[in-house]
């Protein structure tokens, strides 16, 4: 089986910087870790450090100030060494905090997992119990528990565990409920695993990060709560050194000997700051919601190299006559960790006024990044435009100041994105969002703009547009939401509409209606369009010309009927051949072996050569130019004459192909 060989070529997965690397780049978290580490080490070493006995009283030397001869931090009201008591007290606080956090996490997450996994009555019984605990103010509850059990450090810890269990139970239940519906849970049941196995091996490992995050951010709290109970005399009992207790003792001496209260206060502060900073750092690494660069600050426009750098490899002549938009030698790269991804590589494209062009390619081929580069919408970092120019009516869009770019965005060039549910604002009625698009570029009064928005909704086929303008995105179907997206794009009668897979998320019948609408409105408005899709069928219905992308480059371009009927690049030909068409009937699907190359490790020569049955030695080295193969038809292939003459199957067989 050819696929075996193909998959055997290991797809290299570029790892993002590891967890430790991420952590060490977070300076605040590192500070917290160091602070906490130092405190913890000192506390753990207390028995071996040359400290005075913390409980040894010396009434003669009561309330000695810090930096006294025998006591570095002075002594308290009974003449006990403050330094020693602070170190021993920290030890107690840390142990109590960590143990309490561990116990609360274990009990709380067990309750949360069981409630979410079994649902129904188990869920109701467990969670209503948790709700009852949460109904009491937590300090009051802790006080009541200690009052019932009697004051002691252990009892204070039990009280703190009990009041913290609800936090864990609730957050773990929340995560687990979402996970219970995941397909891998269904798959685990189909694998014949028992409920205990599913909880232990499937659920628990996935819930663990949430537990760790919640625990690491709550240790600080628990230390403070323990100190609070000790301060009230309900925790550690004299003579045991405990930070909260020390603070309580020193409170009465604030005017006579301020250091007795201040020093344990500072110790508590340092521990809490250290633990919390460390906990935040751990959360940033483990929290899946923050993983995809949620913390990175994105610039308003893509970073662009200087014009001199961009134009270095570009001929000054050869601009297309009368083009609305022209991309010349566009290069967009992503730098992630140590690797450079050439998402868009030396791309040339021309769009004439009123023309519809299609960009076709698989994921990772660079089609979306090409489209986003036009108006500087590629996220920076990590994206950067490093070469070429983008001429819109003769003006280079790259390197424009942000205000000028904003004036063009949504006005002369408008975008329609794939999933309108993520691009529309969920908390604003759709009419108001169309109004916003209008007023961003036109001087219109509120009433005027609203009327115009309603007219736009009418023109995109929304029934009862006056009513629907007040609806929120979630109240509409996917097809209607995409119609809103189209209305917003058309609001300012743009010269160019960039549509990125606008119908991929829609059902077939809805897709057909939305495509027809888009085609009709584009013609009425005489706007040009760039239509991005992975589907040749969709592109063939809408576009005049087509660009096929592979590995960040244009590999073939031409009029739609030429490219689809007489493909000149083996990739186009093989891709067309392996997509089933209606009416072919049951047949063996012949796939292209292998996978597209990751753009951080492109092969020399033609990027498709490793998967190509026609590849010869010359295909694997040097730069392969985009050559003309017919009127308005070009292909980046040394073997295109053969492909055109015999088709890729015939040529492959004649050549004794290597697929």
């Amino acid at each position, binding site marked *: 089986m050819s696929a075996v060989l193909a998959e*055997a070529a290991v797809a290299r997965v570029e790892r993002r910087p590891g967890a430790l690397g991420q952590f060490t780049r977070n300076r605040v978290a590192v500070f917290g870790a160091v602070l906490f580490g130092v405190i913890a080490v000192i506390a753990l070493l207390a028995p071996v450090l040359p400290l005075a006995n913390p409980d040894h009283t010396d009434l003669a030397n009561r309330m000695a100030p810090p930096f006294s001869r025998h006591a570095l931090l002075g002594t308290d009201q009974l003449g006990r060494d403050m330094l020693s008591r602070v170190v021993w007290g920290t030890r107690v606080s840390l142990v109590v905090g960590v143990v309490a956090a561990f116990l609360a996490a274990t009990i709380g997450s067990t309750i949360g997992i069981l409630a979410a996994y079994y649902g129904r009555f188990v869920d109701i019984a467990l969670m209503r119990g948790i709700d009852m605990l949460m109904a009491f103010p937590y300090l009051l509850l802790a006080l009541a528990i200690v009052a019932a059990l009697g004051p002691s450090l252990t009892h204070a810890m039990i009280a703190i565990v009990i009041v913290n269990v609800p936090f864990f139970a609730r957050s773990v239940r929340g995560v687990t409920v979402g996970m219970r519906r995941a397909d891998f849970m269904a798959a685990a049941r189909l694998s014949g695993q028992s409920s205990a196995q599913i909880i232990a*091996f499937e659920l628990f490992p996935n819930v663990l990060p949430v537990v760790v995050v919640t625990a690491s951010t709550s240790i600080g709290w628990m230390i403070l709560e323990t100190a609070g109970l000790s301060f009230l005399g309900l925790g550690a009992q004299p003579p045991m050194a405990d930070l909260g207790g020390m603070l309580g003792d020193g409170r009465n001496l604030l005017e006579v000997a301020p250091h007795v209260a201040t020093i344990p206060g500072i110790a508590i502060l340092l521990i809490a700051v250290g633990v919390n900073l460390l906990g935040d750092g751990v959360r940033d690494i483990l929290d899946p919601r923050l993983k995809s660069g949620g913390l990175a600050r994105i610039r308003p426009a893509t970073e662009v190299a200087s014009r001199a750098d961009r134009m270095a490899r570009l001929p000054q002549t050869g601009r297309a006559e009368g083009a609305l938009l022209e991309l010349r030698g566009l290069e967009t790269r992503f730098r992630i960790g140590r690797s450079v991804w050439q998402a868009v590589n030396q791309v040339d494209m021309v769009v004439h006024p009123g023309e519809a062009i299609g960009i076709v390619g698989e994921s990772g081929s660079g089609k979306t990044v090409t489209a986003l580069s036009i108006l500087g919408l590629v996220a920076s970092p990590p994206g950067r435009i490093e070469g070429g120019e983008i001429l819109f009516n003769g003006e280079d869009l790259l390197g424009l100041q942000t205000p000028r770019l904003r004036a063009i965005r949504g006005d002369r060039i408008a975008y329609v994105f794939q999933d309108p549910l993520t691009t529309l604002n969920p908390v604003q009625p759709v009419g108001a969002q169309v109004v916003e698009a209008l007023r961003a570029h036109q001087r219109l009064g509120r009433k005027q703009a609203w009327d115009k928005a309603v007219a736009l909704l009418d023109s995109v086929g929304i029934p009862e547009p006056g009513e629907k303008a007040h609806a929120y995105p979630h109240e509409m179907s996917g097809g209607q939401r995409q119609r809103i997206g189209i209305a917003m794009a058309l609001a300012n009668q743009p010269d160019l509409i960039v549509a990125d897979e606008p119908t991929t998320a829609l059902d077939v019948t809805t897709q057909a209606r939305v*495509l027809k609408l888009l085609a009709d409105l584009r013609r009425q408005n005489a706007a040009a369009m760039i239509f991005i899709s992975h589907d040749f069928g969709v592109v063939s219905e809408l576009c005049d010309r087509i660009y096929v992308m592979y590995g960040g480059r244009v590999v073939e371009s031409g009029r739609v009927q030429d490219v689809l009927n007489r493909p000149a690049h083996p990739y186009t030909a093989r891709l067309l051949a392996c*997509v089933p068409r209606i009416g*072919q009937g049951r047949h063996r699907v*012949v796939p292209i072996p292998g*996978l*597209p190359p990751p753009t951080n490790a492109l092969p020399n020569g033609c990027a498709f050569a490793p998967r190509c049955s026609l590849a010869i030695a010359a295909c694997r080295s040097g730069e392969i130019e985009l050559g003309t193969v017919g009127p308005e038809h070009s292909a980046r292939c040394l073997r295109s004459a053969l492909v055109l003459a015999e088709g890729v199957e015939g040529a492959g067989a004649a050549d004794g192909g290597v697929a």
Partner: protein
Amino acid sequence: MTAPGTASDAAPPVALRSVVREYPGRRPSIFAPRTKLRAVDGVSLDVPRGRTLGIVGESGCGKSTLARMMVGLLPPTEGDILIGGRPVGAYQRRELSRLIQMVFQDPTGSLNPRRTVRRTLEAPLAALRGMNQAARGRRVEELMGLVGLRADFADRYPHEFSGGQSQRIGIARALAAEADILVLDEPVSALDVSVQAQVLALLQDLQRRLGLSYVFISHDLAVVDAVADEVAVMQRGRIVEFGVPDTIFTKPSHAYTRELLASHPGQHKV
């Protein structure tokens, strides 16, 4: 289509008899009882042995609910689902899993992100086939080979695989149970076009070699046309048309089938 009600050897691998699945809907008012939504509304179908039954329809037509009922993840509200002539409800979970398995739409979502592929594949081998450690290790290697993946990939985690590779692992897991029937719920919809062709070719190859019966669910008419021996068109929980692909795709008799065909991209210039 086998005539319903024949003896159990000749019984189709999967037979659906007037299957209904209802979900609780909203309450019109606090005192009124909840309305009921019929996701699947009286479906009767037979899956042909060693061949492929295609089910096409748009999102929300009930095809995924139907798939989950066939493998016993959801009980039907009314009607019977017979696997080898016996109702699904009469089987123990593990017995049923040895007969019928499922491949899910989202290739990465159907793999536990915190388990290696080996552990994911070994779970059904231990629970359903009762294999010991050594036998499991050998079988995992065989399974990886069967779906065209290198055996040493088994020690990787799901995030290290592409969509197409993940879907191959999903197929390997379904094969691990040695079930004869696979329910494929949109198995190639989340994949890129060239990868989609690879997975389709793999499924066709496995069916030929292992004699599997497929229930192939998809919204893509062209894909169903390429793999199915019989096609059912589903709309709002009902089967509106049933037949061989040739008839369905060239001479559709139901208006909805005609609309689906007309909507398929690439049929016309807008």
